[in-house]
């Protein structure tokens, strides 16, 4: 038996081999940020014991305002619903975060689930990034302010999207990753799609702008 290996849901597109540094040749630049850690955290957002325990354990205040997110030290917490948050972190920190969260929430009514196999993230940048998002979704991305995260449609499937730096991030389900990537490629045809070399640009492998 060989060792189990991690394979990104977009592995078959060979994005790594096509990646090149971002320049002026394409209107849209996109790539996957693979192998991040995703934790589903559920609990009562109006219960101070839960909010304090989770925030202290994560080192980031749990965003309580609807449709907002908070980032610190490479950890991003997305508000998904009044009782649900998604924690996105570097894979290397995943098990430590899970452990400390579960320990901190032992006596609090809550749920902490490792969802890392179920999601991946795509970064969409470039002068026409907004145009492409307007094509693929019913949400008016022109009105999406920094610091806000929205769950909306992407073609016939759904994503969580937010702005980071000059670009957009979409958190997508593994089972829809193939469909969403193909949809994105088709939508970007009028503008030209470049596969962004993330390692050599603003994004480090942890998915945090350098």
């Amino acid at each position, binding site marked *: 038996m060989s060792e189990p290996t991690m394979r990104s849901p977009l592995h078959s597109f060979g994005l790594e081999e096509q990646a090149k540094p971002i320049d002026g040749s394409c209107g849209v630049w996109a790539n996957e940020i693979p192998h991040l850690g995703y934790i589903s955290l559920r609990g009562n957002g109006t219960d101070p014991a839960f909010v304090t325990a989770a925030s202290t354990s994560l080192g980031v205040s749990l965003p309580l305002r*609807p*449709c907002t997110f908070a980032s610190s030290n490479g950890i991003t917490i997305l508000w*998904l*619903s*009044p009782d*649900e948050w998604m924690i996105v972190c570097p894979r290397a920190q995943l098990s430590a975060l899970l452990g400390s969260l579960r320990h901190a929430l032992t006596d609090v009514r809550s749920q902490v689930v490792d969802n890392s196999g179920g999601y991946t993230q795509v970064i969409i940048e470039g002068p026409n990034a907004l145009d492409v998002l307007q094509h693929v979704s*019913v*949400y008016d991305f022109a009105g999406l302010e920094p610091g806000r995260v*929205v*769950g*909306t*449609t992407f073609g016939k499937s*759904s*994503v969580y999207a937010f702005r980071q730096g000059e670009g957009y991030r979409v958190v997508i389900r593994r089972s829809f990753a193939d469909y969403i990537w193909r949809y994105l490629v088709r939508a970007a045809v009028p503008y030209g799609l470049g596969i962004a070399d993330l390692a050599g640009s603003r994004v480090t492998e942890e998915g945090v702008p350098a």
Partner: protein
Amino acid sequence: MFVLFCPHCGEKREEEEFGYGGEAFIPRPATPEALDDEAWGDYLFMRKNPKGWHWEMWSHNTGCRKFFVVKRNTATNAIAGSWTLAEGRKAYDAEGGST
């Protein structure tokens, strides 16, 4: 197509983000075992289907995935408001629990 306000997300969103949840506030019989088949069938299947104002549930499928209550006019698609289930119950009862 119309726009709904999600009371959990605090934003107006396109109808495509939502799923229809049917008529709201259908009281479940307290003693189902005491009902005859017709009364139980009424509870399960019979709905108001009004032309006009209708209290109904929607779920924000792509967003917070929570159910909430909308008062919508089925003839014109005018929307009188949307509430969380608890708040909607109060508004519904304040109207006398009908229409």
